[in-house]
């Protein structure tokens, strides 16, 4: 993986010193809150409902064991002994004291981590496919590009005060696991007729108040043009973006108001203008970065024990079938660690669990970890012969829940349990749904299902692209949950349709249960997933289940 160069180290250390000084000046009264607020946000420090929250970037979701251990230590030393992994491949600490933040950032810098640009109207943490570098379907590892973008966008003088925040996601696979179509810029690696990899560029995707799927502005962008092209997009947006209205300030609205054709024309014109400024230094940097992402030294080992334990141990088999994915290297596998044990808070890991994960990465995973936008942890490179031992260790730490991609593998944002912007809670709704279907022993029978919950219209829980989405709202002072159906976060991205009136906190779990029971009755065969069934039949039978005639008055 990429390691900091002396420049990176110096840059991050300087920033820690500068921000520590700003904190001190806020505390001694030299800075007002109005002055301090943008400074703390630039450094990932929020003030939430009950406490401060520090959002730490995990660039393109990649970590090693040492970094994970440090996160565990930080959570114990300065917080309440756990961390929350987010849909943007960040980790959040929910209880830091203002006076400890400088020390936390310094501890992070010790392991080449920081919280810079995890908030504010700038280019945020660049996210990537969590199977990057390992996936069987991958054209090439997208992380060198993500790292190049990180270096370029960090403290970029032109793009520190954009009209609004700006999110970039990149995938190297035709199967989009990085939700690229819901990002301000989505980069999807494709090959041209000669087999050369490049990028399909989409712009203007985003969830939130006005959900939109990104539109393709370039079918094939050669890799050497990537940085000037992305800069052209940002430059056009920086000029056109609506600074007069926060709700219209994202590039999706710019795209909508300007029109895709005209915006594309402007981007191309700007690109032609700035392209000559890129003399090739970026390509030298990229070449050096790419070396840092060389695949690990794969081993070979006998698989007979693996095959025997797979046959003999039902729990292990179930975990392998559900949580293990195909790797590009023969004999290897990608193992996903679920942070969604039924009843637990989605995306949370205790310090003890983080240490076990670190140890597993070092022992069985070539010291590599990934955080997925689905709030799970991935060991991208595990030899199949090590899977059994890995599973045993994970089981002992409560980390072997076999539910990846199933109904209890729910994305849930912090919602009103933490977030100052929330209109309703999301965590307990996720907990209750997971517990209910676990009690019914139905989740494996239900099969692949993406359920996503947000605690407000900002949609950090990606509810619009969930097969089932739940949006928590405040309706006349009461929590109310709106259901959307048929969303899709993959390469066939789609925004879900609103099913109808919302449900109260007490009604939402039974409503989801009715919906799922209807699906089980309606599917033609077991292999027809909820999404496929919905696409075949449309909303009507599902709405009937959600709003049965005799309950009509009640639900409305």
């Amino acid at each position: 993986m990429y390691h900091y160069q002396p420049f990176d180290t110096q840059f991050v250390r300087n920033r820690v010193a500068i921000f520590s000084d700003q904190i001190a000046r806020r505390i001694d009264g030299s800075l007002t809150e109005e002055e301090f607020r943008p400074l703390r946000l630039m450094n990932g420090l929020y003030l939430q409902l009950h406490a401060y929250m520090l959002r730490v970037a995990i660039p393109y979701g990649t970590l090693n064991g040492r970094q994970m251990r440090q996160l565990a230590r930080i959570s114990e030393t300065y917080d309440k002994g756990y961390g929350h992994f987010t849909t943007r491949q960040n980790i959040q600490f929910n209880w830091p004291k203002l006076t400890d933040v400088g020390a936390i950032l310094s501890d992070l810098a010790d392991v080449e981590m920081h919280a810079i640009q995890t908030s504010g109207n700038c280019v945020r943490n660049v996210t990537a496919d969590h199977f990057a570098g390992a996936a069987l379907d991958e054209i090439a590892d997208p992380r060198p590009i993500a790292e190049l973008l990180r270096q370029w966008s960090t403290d970029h003088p032109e793009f520190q005060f954009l009209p609004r925040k700006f999110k970039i996601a990149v995938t190297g696979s035709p199967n989009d696991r990085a939700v690229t179509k819901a990002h301000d810029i989505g980069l999807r690696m494709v090959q041209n007729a000669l087999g050369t990899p490049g990028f399909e560029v989409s712009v203007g995707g985003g969830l939130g108040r006005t959900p939109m799927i990104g539109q393709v502005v370039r079918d094939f962008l050669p890799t050497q043009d990537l940085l000037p092209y992305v800069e052209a997009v940002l430059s056009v947006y920086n000029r056109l973006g609506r600074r007069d209205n926060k709700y219209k300030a994202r590039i999706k609205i710019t795209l909508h108001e300007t029109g895709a054709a005209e915006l594309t024309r402007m981007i191309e014109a700007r690109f032609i203008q700035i392209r000559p400024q890129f003399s090739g230094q970026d390509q030298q940097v990229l070449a050096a970065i790419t070396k840092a992402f060389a695949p690990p030294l794969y081993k070979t080992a006998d698989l007979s024990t693996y095959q025997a334990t797979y046959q003999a141990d039902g729990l292990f088999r179930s975990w392998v079938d559900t949580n293990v994915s195909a790797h590009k290297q023969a004999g290897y596998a990608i193992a996903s660690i679920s942070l969604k044990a039924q009843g637990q808070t989605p995306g949370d890991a205790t310090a003890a669990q983080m240490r076990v994960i670190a140890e597993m990465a070092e022992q069985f995973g070539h010291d590599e970890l990934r955080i997925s936008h689905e709030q799970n942890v991935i060991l991208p490179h595990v030899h199949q012969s090590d899977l059994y031992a890995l599973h045993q260790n994970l089981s002992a730490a409560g980390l072997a829940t076999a539910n990846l991609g199933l109904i209890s593998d729910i994305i849930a944002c912090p919602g009103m349990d933490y977030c100052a912007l929330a209109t309703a809670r999301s965590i307990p709704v996720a907990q209750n749904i997971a517990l209910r279907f676990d009690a019914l022993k139905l989740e494996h029978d239900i099969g692949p299902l993406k359920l996503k919950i947000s605690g407000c219209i900002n949609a950090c829980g990606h509810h619009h692209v969930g097969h089932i989405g739940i949006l928590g709202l405040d309706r006349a002072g009461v929590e109310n949950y709106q259901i959307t159906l048929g969303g899709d976060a993959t390469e066939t991205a789609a925004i879900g349709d609103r099913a109808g009136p919302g449900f109260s906190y007490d009604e939402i779990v039974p409503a989801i249960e009715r919906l799922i029971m209807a699906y089980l009755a309606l599917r033609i065969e077991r292999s027809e997933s909820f999404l496929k069934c919905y696409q075949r039949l449309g909303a009507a039978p599902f709405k009937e289940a959600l709003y049965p005639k005799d309950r009509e008055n009640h639900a409305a």
Partner: protein
Amino acid sequence: MSHFTPKVVTGNDLLLGDVIYLTETDSWSRDLLLAQLITDPDQAARKLAYAETQTHKIVGPYLADMQAAPQGPMPMHFREGFRTRGPSNYRHGKQEGLL
């Protein structure tokens, strides 16, 4: 006189981030029950203006609607209710150590 919903002045503690309330003696308390329930709009405006000068103590002061209960002010809205306790997934925040 038109109807005025009683209020308390609240915000977050600068150093800890914890929810705090303004008391009758113009000090800050972590406990809503010790907050001053303000029943008059002019006084509410005055108290808020005072809170806004307390930038070394408090972040983001505002007026929150409350109702009078025998034991003290009671939140009208569920958001304010959560602010008196802490999150519902762990016994952290104000509810920590209680019960």
